[in-house]
């Protein structure tokens, strides 16, 4: 089910344009709000739905297999590390789902270049770069020999 933007909610921040892997979220030249230029090419990854800080992007099914009347809404709460979905079926039923997305604060993950450059001698190690400290554990589990 491809996405579409509710222009009364969109503030034209561009986050959906930035994140869309298909590059089909663009900016409307008249109202400067985002819109899906080609729903047929939507991968339905819903990255834009989840990235939108204003819950301005909704999901709309193709009329042949998901007749209009339903609604799929998303609430992103990065401060709680959760994304919730609310599905409204055509017959009026409602279902809500909450998905934890992370356990660390939003924006707290360090980029690779922010870490100290590893020593070349570490190439022979079984550990990956910055393990185990980057995993927030003191040591990785090992297999006990019989």
């Amino acid at each position, binding site marked *: 089910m491809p996405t579409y933007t509710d222009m009364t909610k969109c503030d034209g921040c561009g986050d959906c344009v930035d994140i869309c892997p298909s590059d089909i979220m663009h900016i*409307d030249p008249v*109202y400067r709000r985002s819109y899906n230029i080609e729903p047929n090419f939507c991968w339905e990854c819903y990255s834009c739905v989840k990235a939108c800080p*204003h819950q301005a992007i909704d999901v709309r099914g193709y009329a042949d297999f998901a007749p209009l009347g339903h609604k799929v809404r998303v609430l992103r709460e990065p401060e709680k590390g959760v994304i919730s979905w609310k599905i409204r079926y055509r017959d009026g039923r409602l279902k809500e789902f909450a998905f934890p997305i992370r356990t660390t604060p939003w924006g707290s993950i360090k980029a690779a270049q922010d870490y100290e450059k590893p020593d070349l001698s570490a190439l022979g190690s079984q550990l990956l770069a910055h393990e185990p400290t980057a995993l927030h554990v003191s040591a990785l589990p090992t297999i006990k020999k019989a």
Partner: protein
Amino acid sequence: MTAALEAAECEAAKGRRLTEVTMFTINPFAALTDLLPLLAMQVYIVLMMLAVVGGTLFDVVHKGSARFFARRREQSAAAALRQLSGGETASIAVGVIAEAAVSGEFSKWPRRLSHLLMMYGFFTYLITTVAMVFCYPAGTPTPTILPTLWTAGGLMVLAGGLWFFFFLRVNVAYDGASPFHLGRADLFIGSVLVSIAFALVWHYMQATIGNTISTRIVFGIYIFFTTLLFVSVPWSKFAHMFFKPAVRFQRRVEGANGSSDLPSPSTENFIIRS
């Protein structure tokens, strides 16, 4: 003879004072009465106000905004889990005004700061324009604070607006459009920037070289773009200052009365590590 000398000295001193006066302290519209009668300026301002009201009403009818809001209210009332009291509704309205006052709808600080500069700069510029034209015509001493605020308001609009126009406009920052590419979406910001830029240039020329032909040409360009700004309301996003708070109010009402189609906020916090 002595009286004539004194008069000449007085005129010379007056001239020196005039050249010392900066654009921050003189009322630009008082000096304009050499060119335009005061009544013409006042009628122009009233006409521009009427153009904004008329343009917004036309926009409401043409785009069907009133129908949209009425339908939305009906749907919200039908799906409401509880009725809001008058106090709760008033509290929501106050919250919406407070949010609009700090441009709280923007999630990114550069856009918010740019919008705050433009919004408060524009209001300051408008209010001081009206005050100087209606309350302090030629011959009435204008408090220095008014032209100072008028100029400062214009500079704030230019600072926030140029920042937005060249660096923050979403089609430029995210869609890869050229900063010089203009579309209908730029009608409002473009006419605001050009109008205020020429207003400040005109004021500067008036304060330094007086009402010469070139000053009058710059004044003509200023008036052209100011007129464009106010009469283009149905085609520009000028009316967003009325629609945005209305939409925000409706959404907050829906959130409060339980008719919002958004999922309920999570009761659990999954951030357990730093």
